[in-house]
């Protein structure tokens, strides 16, 4: 039995402790905003925050997340109010299919906490998430917009 703190709530799941956090979040807790794209920490679709740090949840066993503060895409908006990154995403109409965007938004939210006004080089180094629809140009624009907001 894994006990987790997700989006401020305590939740439990009856799973093998080696199960990647991603599948506990998706299949056991039913929070499907966090996506699966590769399972090997390559694509970033599964990015969540663990104690504020952007983490690819497909490559973290659930046992390693116990007792830590986990935030998923569902926990970003507070009382229905979008975070400034989410709002910038809406204003710049970033998503195409949208599948990679939960991970993008989570990765960028963590980046902006560390570096409130990132340069393009810092963005390139930090945001290595894959978007097959090719929204990178809108992502960059929205990051700068969120940094100004």
């Amino acid at each position, binding site marked *: 039995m894994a006990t987790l703190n997700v989006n401020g709530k305590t939740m439990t799941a009856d799973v093998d402790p080696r199960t990647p956090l991603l599948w506990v979040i998706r299949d056991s807790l039913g929070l499907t905003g966090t996506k699966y794209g590769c399972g090997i920490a390559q694509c970033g679709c599964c990015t969540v925050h663990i104690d504020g740090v952007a983490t690819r949840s497909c490559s973290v066993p659930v046992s390693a997340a116990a007792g830590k503060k986990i935030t*998923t895409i569902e926990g970003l908006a507070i009382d229905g109010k979008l975070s400034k990154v989410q709002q910038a995403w809406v204003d710049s109409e970033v998503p*195409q*299919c949208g599948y990679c965007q939960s991970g993008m938004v989570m990765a960028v939210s963590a980046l902006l906490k560390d570096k409130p006004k990132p340069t393009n080089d810092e963005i390139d180094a930090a945001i290595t998430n894959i978007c097959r629809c090719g929204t990178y*140009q809108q992502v960059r624009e929205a990051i700068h917009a969120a940094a100004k907001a």
Partner: protein
Amino acid sequence: MNAFTHIDRRSFLVGASAGGLSLGMSLSFTGAAEAAVTMPEVNAWVVVKPDDSVVIRVVRPDMGQGSMTGLAQLVAEELECDWSKVSTEYPTPGENLARKRVWGAMNSTGSQAIRSSQDYVRRGGAAARIMLVQAAADEWKVPAAECTVEKGVISHKGSGKKTSFGKVAAAAAKIAPPDPKGIVLKDPKTWTIAGKPLKRADTIDKVTGKHSFGIDVKLPGMMIAAIRQCPVNGGKVKSFESARVEGMRGVKKVVQVGEEAVAVVADNFWNAKQAVLALPVVWDEGKSADVSSETIAAILKAGLDADEAFVGNRIGDAKEALAQPGVRKIEAVYAYPFQNHATMEPMNATALYTADKCEVWCPTQNAEAALAVTIATSGLPADKCEVYKTQLGGGFGRRGRADFVAQAILIAKQLPGTPVKLLWTREEDMTHCSYHPITQCKLTAGVDEKGNVTAWKMRISGQSIIASLAPERLENGMDPATFQGLTASAPEGAFGYNIPNVLIDHAMRNTHLTAGFWRGVNSNHNAIYVESFIDEIAHETKQDPLEFRRKLLKPKQLAVLNAVAAKAGYGKPAKGRAFGLSSMNTFGSYVAACAEVSVVDGKLTIHRIVAATDPGYIVNPALVERQVMGSFVYGLSALLYGEISVKNGAVEQTNFDTYNVMRMAEMPVVEVILAPSGGFWGGVGEPTISVAAPAVLNAIFAATGKRVRSFPLMNQDLGTV
């Protein structure tokens, strides 16, 4: 038709986003029931509720390209409703079938979604407007011709009367619809909703995790399946030892899926995957077990000089023109590898089978094809089958197929009454795609003493998509799609250059891998071959690539090329930078690109791309721009990294670590010129992909003098000429 069951099933999925603006599935159960009971549709396309809100129904899947928004704009334009009150709905293929395909084809493939349905959806919107106005006129006892409409409000000037769509919708529904052929559509120049950069309605769902993809389907009692298919395409399962994994955590059942796969059904995906990977399976790999990339390349190479080939374009006599005395021959051979779509969301489908019903939830680019597979695989009659399209995490052509739907049903049939979600691992997805076809190409040009091109001979040798996916559509053995952008005059895509003697033919050489439609399809490699070789001829005859093209190009293609050259500042590169050009006519549109690159110590940087598209008309410029920008990421990912190779019959790449794609850091700035010239409807999602790679390749040549003729670039050393 049992509309209630359908809508009920659909609303299952919406779950979290019910009541939100989720396009395509915006109706909650109650909302839909109300609409069905108290608010009959005006026609198939339009439902108006008493509060004046409008539901527009269209059936072309939106996988992020924006077709749902664009088609709704076209309907709303003719309907003259208030755009702020519009939501959209996506009927099921079962509903479409039961209503004699009133909504038309349901595929978003071949850049067809807007252009192939624009005419009838506009007529649908206009017919509804005519009926709504007639209903008001009848109530007021005035001629309909004296009434005007604006934003869903109908007015009669003479009497000063006003009403709204919502108030007359019920009466309008009873009016005989006008003959669609007699309807005069608006001149696009007068559009106020279509043609505008209106926003999609589903963006908030996409940034809050609520957009519900196939992988996110949740049904009561649902189990999850992970699959392993024979590593060699065409191979079969010989035997497997279920007992070895049946006791593993969460495992419910171990099943064979068709002849070629095994699956484990479990309580969650992780447990299913662990068990299916641990399952001992003996494969009969079949006759392709010794095929490799080298053996495939040798077969294609032989095809370059084979006597027999299907002719796709013959003008004059290229062979004779090449044999003329004084004619200089220029020749080059190119090769293009297999590519995987690598949609961000791996293949998946959820099926619920009982003895008298089969239902499927899946991300599909063609819900009718998915329904046909559901009917065939379940063995149930059509009216006992239904497919609910979920949102798609990318499609790019891969989701036009329904192989994964058949598998989900084959598994669900072994667990009647239990919904089963089949999810492929990325590894299965990478190794069991319908790949962008592999080809080689030999080009020969004849040039006379004055530098005029007198002959163009082009032999493509390689795989046919149609032979793989729809052999019944071959024309006397020939795959016409091979000649995308190369035909003599087809509006879908003609060879852009005026050359007196042309011979373009195809030696079909199929491999054991399945070939498929991959965003841009055959125009991707065709554009690389033509546009690189045009550059080679320009160089060999000491002409500037732009001036050389200007002498030969047909007008509409030249117009977009001139536009990119002018905006990019072609001819005046900054120090250390170089430009490369390309253009193409494909999917009915004219497109061009100018790439600006530098190569330092063998390292390529793509600084900027100026792209232009003339698709005739543009329904939503903001969405078209995004399609064009995104298409360069797709096209350049393939150029930089994309290669599926084969060893011992199996695909070697398994995930994004071995099949890399472009990330933010490599993304050039893409500037988009929208140049709709009117008079035709071309596609948008795919055409510009084709010009991405050749523009960069020609820029690399301009920068380094190195002509790259095989791909991807990561295998090439750009530091040495």
